[in-house]
């Protein structure tokens, strides 16, 4: 590993050189007409994009050029035009992620400055949002602490995971290993349909049926509990867990399962000792993705929660439900302006970064699993 940097550098150089070579080959192999066409396509599209970013009314001109060039290219140089167009679409996908990052981060800058805090003489921008617990956008001192919402999100997510993970993994096992073909044909679409039920419908039922019921059962003052928001969100995350975990379980090679059965084990022993351990990474990725879903769930939380950014007392009091990061945004974007609006973007940033990390983590785990099953471990 000592020569890692060295190796990397030469690797990088080699890569750059290869890239350049390939580009030169491409230019050599391509007719001048095609080259001009794709150059025009690329340039006009870039111009249109820049125009759009700058809110220019001229955006449409390069866009029309782009359409015309693409049309011409399609007729005359289809091979090259297809390449450049598909490349463009790919770059756009990356670009969208980039734009999301840039825009929600940019919008949240002012509140980060406002909420600076000084620790040990060092002023850390944004720190106060995480060390104080007060959110009050109206009466002074105006504070935009994220702590209550983070607490709410954590509570909801924990409860949701406690619901979705075991039930989801069990259902995935059922679908991939146990269910007879006929049953499977019914249950699997059923789970998919469950994923399709709009969250606002869950929220509506939660608000009108579940919340008053819970208020009654637990003798609560008013309605709106993390417990039942968590349960509802858990049910909503369930299909994600089931389908990803099922994929992982069924990607365990049949030969491994047969191998276990052939030494005379029950299918349950095979599942617990071979299939689940082999698919463990995939199953944990499924749970992680389910967690991601739960964190990002908005509407059910918005209509069921109380909408007061405050910590519950004690912190484990699941019978009260104040606010989550998502519901804060959905509830307040309308009347918010200035710093308060920026604070909503901070909530968005926290959500986005958390879920992005979870997603990357899940992908890493899955990648490792694939490698392991490929025999490289």
């Amino acid at each position, binding site marked *: 590993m000592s020569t890692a940097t060295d190796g990397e550098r030469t690797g990088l150089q080699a890569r750059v050189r290869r890239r350049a070579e390939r580009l030169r080959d491409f230019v050599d192999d391509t007719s001048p007409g095609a080259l001009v066409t794709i150059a025009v396509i690329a340039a006009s599209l870039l111009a249109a994009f820049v125009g759009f970013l700058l809110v220019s009314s001229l955006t449409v001109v390069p866009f029309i050029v782009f359409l015309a060039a693409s049309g011409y290219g399609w007729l005359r140089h289809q091979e090259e035009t297809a390449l450049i167009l598909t490349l463009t679409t790919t770059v756009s996908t990356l670009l969208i992620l980039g734009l999301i990052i840039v825009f929600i981060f940019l919008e949240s800058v002012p509140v980060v400055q406002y909420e600076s805090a000084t620790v040990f003489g060092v002023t850390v921008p944004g720190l106060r949002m995480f060390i104080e617990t007060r959110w009050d956008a109206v009466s002074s001192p105006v504070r935009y602490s994220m702590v209550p919402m983070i607490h709410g999100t954590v509570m909801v997510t924990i409860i949701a995971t406690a619901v979705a993970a075991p039930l989801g993994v069990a259902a995935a096992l059922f679908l991939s290993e146990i269910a007879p073909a006929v049953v499977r044909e019914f249950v699997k679409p*059923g789970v998919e349909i469950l994923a399709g039920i709009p969250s606002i419908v869950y929220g509506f039922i939660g608000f009108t049926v579940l919340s008053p019921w819970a208020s009654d059962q637990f003798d609560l003052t008013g309605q709106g509990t993390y417990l039942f928001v968590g349960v509802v969100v858990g049910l909503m995350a369930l299909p994600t867990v089931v389908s990803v975990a099922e994929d992982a379980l069924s990607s365990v090679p049949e030969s491994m399962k047969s191998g276990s059965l052939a030494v005379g084990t029950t299918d349950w022993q095979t599942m617990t000792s071979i299939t689940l351990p082999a698919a463990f990474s995939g199953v944990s990725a499924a749970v992680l*993705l389910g967690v991601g879903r739960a964190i990002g769930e908005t509407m059910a939380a918005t209509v069921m929660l109380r909408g007061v950014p405050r910590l519950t007392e004690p912190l484990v009091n699941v019978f009260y439900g104040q606010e989550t990061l998502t519901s804060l945004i959905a509830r307040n974007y309308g009347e918010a302006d200035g710093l308060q609006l920026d604070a909503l973007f901070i909530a968005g940033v926290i*959500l986005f970064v958390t879920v992005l990390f979870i997603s990357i983590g899940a992908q890493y785990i899955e990648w490792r699993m694939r490698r392991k099953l490929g025999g490289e471990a």
Partner: protein
Amino acid sequence: MAGATRSKLVEAETTGTDAVAAGAVGLSAILFVLSLAALFETVTISEPVAGIPVVTLIGGLLVLLGGAVITFGVGSRLGYVETQPSSGAGLIAAAVAGVAWFTVAGGAASQTLGLGTVGGVAGGVVVGGVAFAAAALTREDIGSTVPIGSLSLLTGLVFIADVIGPTWIWDLGWEQSASLTAEFVIPVATLFSTLFAGWAAAKAYGGFGARGRRMGAYTLIYLNALSIVAFLFILVAFVVVQGVPGLMTGVQFGAGVGPETTLFGFTFTWPIYVPFVMNGVALLNDFQGVLPAIVGTIWLVIGAVLFAVPLGVGAAVFLTEYAERGRFTQAVEVATNGLWSTPSIVFGLFGFAFLVPRFGNQKSLLAGMLTLGFMLLPLVVITSREAMIAVPDEYRDASVALGVTKWDTIRSVVLPAALPGVVTGVILGVGRIAGETAPILLTMAGGTFVPGAQTVDVIGGFEFTATPPFVANPELLQATSALPYQLFALITAGVGLGDNVTDPQGFRWATALVLLIVVLSFYAIGIATRYYFRSKLRYE
């Protein structure tokens, strides 16, 4: 292998003792249903059935269940029942028993004995520890029946003895009042005792050992699957039952009762009139409806699909067919997966910050379309990629070996073969975005009660102008309504405002039902497409 034992190749007939275990499983099933009914107040726990209060009845059944489970376990240990127990019940069973007893003992110590939190925890740890040890360290037939059976026994006795009666309540003493009431605790305690005991009984029925564990686990797993399906069924049925009255108000059948529609110059009159989906909200209506929201949803979906599908399929083509696997493809993969898991509200924020200022600085249909398009995009990329990767390389090789160029191969061989997968993915994705509220809340949401006359009309909205950009479409640049948003607005703003809606609650449920129907139709189409293509691709 010294000590290896052979069991019989062919199993014996069911015996009387098996019947006991089977009976216990059946009893658990009854109790399970009963506790659910009590939890949702279909059965009131304080009311008597045949002269016995339900609580006492439940208690009695629990005692019976616990007794049966323990008896079977002890009987097996003493050799009266023929089983094949392993040497221990296993860590998981032990942990379950430990936690259950910890909860019970902790609660009892702190509340009934009044020892407070510390005492509660201490008592819980001691009793839970004993239960854990009893389950872990004894032979399986004892370990998996006695700790769990006695839990059920105890719970039953507590109910019978009225220690926890219908009026019992435990104020948690937390800042805002929150209490555990008998209405909740009794059904839930019954539910858990029953689940545990049912599992132990199923294990016993399987004769413990490998087969017993399989039996126990399968019982729970089947129950879980059944519950999920039942939950889905109940959910949908509930919305249907609640929504149908509102949806059906004012429905008429017969020639000429419906509104007129002109399609391709041909005008016809609908033979059915469903005001709820054919009207907007207006003063002159007999019945109010949500037509503008339905049309808004349809246009949203069309816009999102037009944006995301070409982009997504194009990207998938590039990634699978052109790009070499490397940093770049990896980055795109991470990005698409990241986008896929990005919360919808974040897309909403992004649309709010990025699109709204660029489309006339106001919420608009176009902004909503694009925001949903952004959401749909990663799904299209992922599913299209999967579909294209699944196209066997043989097809590509065959085409290339015939001297066909790359793009021609993609167009004529890869894309057609991948089409089913792409289509299914898109339809399922559309189902998801059609029900999304959060993103359009921030980017598109228009009026709450939209008159039918303001139903968005994208095609009719195109205008041709003499100056660039030559075409304009004010309809696209205006806010409109969509079903999920409409439902949200109805929840938050209510419907009691218009004088014309006689049954506001029915109106809301009907909106929920229509939304559900729209979204689930997409799913149904998606799933059906998949079946169709799958059967077609398998080829006979």
